[in-house]
Every structure is written in structure tokens, then in C-alpha cells.
């Protein structure tokens, strides 16, 4: 299997690099380097849009989130796609009309103002780097199972390849890498979805007989002195801990230590087998009671306990249709076993217990598993905030907006957006099948759900896994290349050429762009290593919030409010960036990342959009009104006389 994976991977990388060197001669001018000469056909650009947009967050992150949180993951698909409506109806043609190479060009088209040039360039850099983090995390996640290399090697590998792609042929090679990747991603997602439907549903998924289904044990227990003592004498009670509102019991069985979850139902106490990772004081890892090794890893999980009220062999469906698949999983009579983590200390050791949780299918197929739509007012506001940022974020992403400069006319910009909506929308429908397919086929890594899509493909055979992994790797390459082009344009074109007034000639502008691409690539590599293990869709959701807060108010007001001033735009961008990032940094989710307690976070919600976007709009209006040029008294007097 590894040979196929490596061969495909090497072939793909060689092909992409060859493509970049082939196009290198076309990228000697600034227009060639930053905007692919503005001559890309709208249909190619539309698929390249899809390749640019369908990032690691879409393929790895959304599939992973659907696999663990059901419909809540699909909310990202809906929000990401809905954002294209804003791009098409409001932004596409004006962006093309007003700009040349970068998003800053468009924003500054009316004013030629130094403040806008700097603020918009900073915003482009911030949003691009926020967006780069999850892509690089995704790269590391992919390379581990594909090539057997550590996470950091994957990150460096992607970073290096992308730097070469961008530095050789800029937007031209980036466009064709994205076109190729966008097309392949959609085609092979259809194949995986088809395979999921053909396999059907079962309560004991065994990957078509290749991996035996592991049945998790339950043992009876009695409570004495607050301790859950197993009835089976083969097990000996050692200790008990409480974490995440659940009780965990440490048992010894035949010299092997393991953690079990204590549950109480109808007055009866029982202990349920779970999975655990224990990191000992010396740094060594124990997985499920035995030392971690290539053979002893966490078991992949996720299955149905009952299908439409049936259990056991009679529940097995055989092949199902696309609607039947969704209906069966969403039935009130279906029970889904998902896995949740709980962390606690055991002396010097750090324990992460992964325990099963049974949820009705009808609850899995509606919002509520991740987003607490029935929770506190703060939790509801957080949900609104996320959905707002997803809706408004797409049209404010600099690496997406620059693709409007690769086509010749505003009409071509519009048509390419429609092609993008078709390709992206279709792909997002498929994410529901791939995510749910992973959820019910025991292919989810309980410690890191990002690999659910590729692992689902692996359950259909090594070739599909190798192809899907290579495509997923291309997914990361395409998006990272687009982000680095956007960031390098911000540095070389917006800041150095226009803001600093260095008046670089074409050749120097391209060289500066290449140097900027190299530096941004290195930053991306470092961040990708630091953020290992965080769900990539979650991170991209935050990037959307920053983009929607920093950029969208300026774009919209510039187009629709004649009294917008350059000072208003600058203030709006700065307030948008500061507020959105400030809220994110002090949110419960980030506190958890820092290793602190969630409830200690000074800001009780994670998604800033609901507050930072209106504040950015408000700032623009107030500052514009304050800085509007006063009517010229002399001119007025002359007019009056006339």
C-alpha cells in the first residue's frame, strides 16, 4: 500500500512542479505573476475558484466534523456555499472593474490613499495567515498515514513545494494547480460517495470484511464506598476519576491496566470499555493499556447501534439510494455511537479517555451536537455569529478576490463565479455523504477527526486511499499557493510598490513577490507545526470571521455609500481586524488550546462576527461622516451668485 501511495504522491508532486516550471516564462511580468496575465478562460477560472476555495477545511475538516458532530459539520458546508451568493450578486463584477492585481487595488481605486494601501495590505496578510494555519495543519495530518512521516515533515514538505510553485510561476501555475485539484476533488468525491451508498449501512461495520468489528465490552458493577467494583472477579478496581461530567474507573485485568466509563441506568451500575491514551511522566505513551507502537494505535471508531429500529444482522441494509441513506441515518429509530474525549491527570500521567456516546439519528441529523442551539443565550449568539461570518466571509477573502483579476472582463468574472458555485455546491452536498459515511463505518480516528475522509476512502481499498490522499494533498497545495500569491501581492505590490512608493519596475516587482512568497511560506510552516491537532474547519471559520469583519464593510460601503471616505475605510479595517482577533484570542476555544480552563476565558463566545462586523460598519460610517470634506464656502457663494 505504501508503494502505491508514495508512487502517486511523487508522480503528483513531480507533475505539479513540472507545470510550474513550464509556466515560469509566462510569469516574468507583474501581470503574469500576480494575475496570470488576465487571460484565463472563465470556465477554467470557475473550477480554479473551486480548487482555491475547497481547502483542507472543506475536505478534511468538514468531513471530520460531520463524522463526529453530524449535521453541525454540514452547517459549515451550507454557510461556505451561501457566501458565494454575496460574491456573485454584490462583489464579483465591481471587483474586476476596480482592481488590477490585489484586493487593495479595488478598495483604493477611488482614492489612491496611502492609509488604505497599508491597512488593506495588512488585512490581506492577517487573513491569509489565519487561513494558512489550517491548511498547513491539514498537510501534516495527511502525510502521516500516507507516507508514514511525522506531522512536522508534512508541513515542511507542503510549505517547500508551494514556495517553489509560487516562486516559479506565480498565479499562472497556481491557477492550473487549482483547476486540476478542483476537478479531481469533485470527481473522486463522487466515487467515494458512490462506494458509501453501494456498501450501505450495518451495525457491525467491518470494511467489507477486511477489518473485524470490535465489540466494546460492558461489565456489571456494584457501588461500595463510592467505588464502582466490577462484578467480574477477573477485573480489579484501582482508582476512579471524574472529568467532563463523567466518571472514569481504572481497572486491572491480567496485569493490564485500562480505563472504563461508569454509567448508571435504571438503578444499575455498569462499566463500559473505552479507549485511552496515557502519557507517562517520561513522555512515553500507553494506548489502551499497552505501550504505543506502529501496531498498537487507537482503534478507529464510529458505528450505528440500531438502524431504523432494527439491530443485529436484520439491520443491515445492503446498497441504498442517496435519499434513503440520509433518511435511515436521520430516523428516530436509528442510534449512532460517536466518541468524545475527556482529559484528566492520574498522578504524574496525563490521561485522555475516548468514551462512546449513543445519540438518536434524528438528533444527529439536525443542529445541536456541536452548536448549542438550545443552549444559553450566549451559545445561541455564538451560533448566529458563526453563520453570519460564513455568509459574509467568502466575499472578503483576499485570495479568492484576486482570482477576479485572472479573467479578461467583468462578465467573465460573473460567469466564473457561477461555475464555482456549481462545483463547490455539488462538492458540499457530497461532504454530507462522506462525513456520515465515515461516522457509521468505523473509520474515525477518535484523537483527530481531520483524517475521516481519507480513512473512509481507505476502507474501500488502498488504491482509492492513495488517490484520495494525493488529491487531499493537492487540495492543500492549491489553496496554500493561492494564499501565498495573495500575501506576496500584498507585500510587494501594495506595500513596497504603492505604499512605500518604491516604483519598482516589472522585473523587480516580480522578484519582490517571490521573496515575499518565500517569507510567508516559512511563517506558514512554523504555524502549521504549532497548531497540530486542531480541527481545520474550526480554524478556517475564524479566518472567515476576520475577513468578514476587516474587509467586507469597506467593500460594501465603497460600492453603495457615496460618502465613504478613505479615513473611514482605514478605521473600519483596523477595528474589524482588532475586534475579531481580540475576541478570538480571549475566547473559550482558544483558552482550551492554551491548556487553560474554558470557563476562565474573559469572553464567553468563540465566533466574533456578530459583534466585529457591525462594529466595523459602524466605524466606517462614523469616521466617514467625521472626515467628510466640508462644502467649500467660496464655491457655494459663487454658485449662489451665479
Amino acid at each position: 500500500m505504501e508503494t502505491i501511495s508514495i508512487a502517486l504522491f511523487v508522480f503528483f508532486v513531480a507533475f505539479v512542479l513540472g507545470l510550474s516550471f513550464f509556466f515560469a516564462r509566462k510569469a516574468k511580468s507583474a501581470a503574469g505573476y500576480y494575475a496570470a496575465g488576465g487571460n484565463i478562460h472563465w470556465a477554467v477560472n470557475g473550477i480554479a475558484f473551486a480548487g482555491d476555495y475547497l481547502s483542507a477545511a472543506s475536505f478534511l475538516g468538514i468531513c471530520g466534523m460531520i463524522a463526529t458532530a453530524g449535521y453541525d459539520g454540514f452547517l459549515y458546508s451550507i454557510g461556505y456555499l451561501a457566501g458565494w451568493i454575496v460574491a456573485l450578486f454584490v462583489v464579483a463584477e465591481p471587483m474586476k472593474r476596480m482592481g488590477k492585481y490585489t484586493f487593495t487595488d479595488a478598495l483604493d481605486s477611488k482614492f489612491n490613499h496611502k492609509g488604505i494601501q497599508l491597512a488593506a495590505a495588512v488585512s490581506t496578510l492577517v487573513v491569509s495567515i489565519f487561513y494558512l494555519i489550517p491548511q498547513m495543519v491539514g498537510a501534516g495530518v495527511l502525510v502521516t498515514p500516507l507516507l508514514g512521516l511525522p506531522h512536522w515533515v508534512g508541513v515542511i514538505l507542503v510549505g517547500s513545494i508551494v514556495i517553489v510553485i509560487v516562486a516559479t510561476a506565480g498565479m499562472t501555475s497556481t491557477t492550473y494547480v487549482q483547476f486540476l485539484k478542483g476537478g479531481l476533488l469533485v470527481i473522486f468525491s463522487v466515487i467515494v460517495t458512490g462506494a458509501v451508498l453501494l456498501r450501505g449501512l450495518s451495525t457491525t461495520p467491518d470494511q467489507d470484511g477486511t477489518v473485524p468489528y470490535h465489540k466494546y465490552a460492558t461489565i456489571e458493577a456494584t457501588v461500595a464506598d463510592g467505588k464502582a467494583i466490577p462484578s467480574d472477579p477477573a477485573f480489579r478496581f484501582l482508582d476512579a476519576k471524574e472529568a467532563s461530567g463523567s466518571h472514569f474507573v481504572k481497572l486491572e485485568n491480567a496485569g493490564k491496566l485500562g480505563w472504563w466509563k461508569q454509567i448508571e441506568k435504571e438503578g444499575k451500575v455498569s462499566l463500559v470499555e473505552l479507549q485511552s491514551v496515557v502519557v507517562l511522566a517520561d513522555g512515553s505513551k500507553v494506548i489502551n493499556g499497552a505501550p504505543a507502537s506502529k501496531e498498537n494505535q487507537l482503534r478507529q471508531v464510529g458505528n450505528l447501534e440500531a438502524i431504523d429500529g432494527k439491530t443485529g444482522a436484520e439491520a443491515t441494509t445492503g446498497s441504498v439510494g442517496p435519499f434513503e441513506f440520509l433518511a435511515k441515518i436521520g430516523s428516530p429509530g436509528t442510534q449512532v455511537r460517536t466518541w468524545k474525549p475527556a482529559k484528566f491527570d492520574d498522578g504524574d500521567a496525563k490521561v485522555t479517555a475516548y468514551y462512546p456516546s449513543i445519540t438518536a439519528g434524528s438528533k444527529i441529523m439536525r443542529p445541536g451536537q456541536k452548536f448549542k442551539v438550545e443552549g444559553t443565550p450566549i451559545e445561541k449568539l455564538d451560533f448566529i455569529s458563526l453563520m453570519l461570518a460564513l455568509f459574509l466571509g467568502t466575499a472578503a477573502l483576499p485570495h479568492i478576490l484576486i482570482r477576479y483579476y485572472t479573467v479578461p472582463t467583468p462578465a467573465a468574472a460573473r460567469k466564473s463565479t457561477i461555475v464555482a458555485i456549481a462545483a463547490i455546491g455539488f462538492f458540499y452536498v457530497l461532504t454530507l455523504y462522506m462525513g456520515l459515511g465515515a461516522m457509521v463505518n468505523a473509520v474515525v480516528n477518535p484523537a483527530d477527526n481531520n483524517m475521516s475522509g481519507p480513512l473512509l476512502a481507505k476502507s474501500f481499498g488502498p488504491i482509492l486511499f492513495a488517490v484520495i490522499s494525493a488529491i487531499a494533498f493537492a487540495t492543500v497545495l492549491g489553496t496554500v499557493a493561492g494564499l501565498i500569491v495573495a500575501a506576496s501581492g500584498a507585500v510587494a505590490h501594495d506595500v513596497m510598490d504603492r505604499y512605500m512608493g518604491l516604483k519598482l519596475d516589472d522585473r523587480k516587482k516580480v522578484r519582490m513577490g517571490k521573496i515575499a512568497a518565500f517569507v510567508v511560506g516559512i511563517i506558514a510552516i512554523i504555524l502549521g507545526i504549532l497548531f497540530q491537532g486542531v480541527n481545520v474547519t474550526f480554524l478556517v471559520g475564524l479566518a472567515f470571521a476576520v475577513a468578514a469583519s476587516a474587509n467586507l464593510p469597506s467593500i460594501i460601503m465603497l460600492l453603495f455609500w457615496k460618502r465613504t471616505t478613505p479615513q473611514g475605510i482605514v478605521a473600519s479595517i483596523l477595528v474589524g481586524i482588532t475586534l475579531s482577533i481580540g475576541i478570538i484570542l480571549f475566547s473559550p476555544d482558544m483558552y482550551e488550546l492554551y491548556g487553560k480552563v474554558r470557563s476562565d476565558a474573559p469572553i464567553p463566545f468563540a465566533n466574533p462576527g456578530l459583534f466585529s462586523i457591525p462594529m466595523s460598519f459602524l466605524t466606517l460610517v462614523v469616521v466617514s461622516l467625521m472626515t467628510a470634506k466640508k462644502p467649500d464656502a467660496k464655491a457655494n457663494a459663487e454658485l449662489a451668485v451665479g
Partner: protein
Amino acid sequence: MFHEPAEKSQVKDLAMAYKTRLGVWMFLVYALVYVLFVAINLIDPSMMEKTVLMGLNLAVVYGLGLIVVALVMAVIYNRMCLVEERRLEAPASDKAGV
């Protein structure tokens, strides 16, 4: 007025005002459908569990619907823009012919 405009964009777009107006209206319609979706999730999330079509619940139908409606509206928008662009360009072509 525009800073360093792309060369081919300098051609005057006679249908610009119409397309802007149409785009805003279509955006508002879609935004309304989207807001309703978010509102149902918050006000009565249990409604999302109800089976409404071919065994699918409202959450799935509405979610997939939002994706399909986006594409349908995009195609309609493009069609209407094209018709207007051709209508406004036609007299100029006729004159050129004469």
C-alpha cells in the same frame, strides 16, 4: 477615476446599474431564506427533526435546498444580466452595421 484599471475593464458597461440593482435584490431574497434557516434552528430546533420529504427531515431538505437555490438563482441572475447586456449593446451594433 479608477486606479490602474485592468485594460479590458475600461470598456463602459452600459448594464452596470441594472446588474447592480438586480444583484442587490437577489442577494436580499437569498439572505432572507438564509436568515429564516438560522432562525428556525434557534427558535424551534425540534422542527428541524420533522420528516418533510422522501423520509428526509427539514434540516437536510432546507440545508440541501439552500445549496440548490443558490445555484438556481445564480443561473437566473446570469441569464438576466446577459439579456440586459445584449439589449443595451444592440443599438450600438445596429449603428455600426449601418
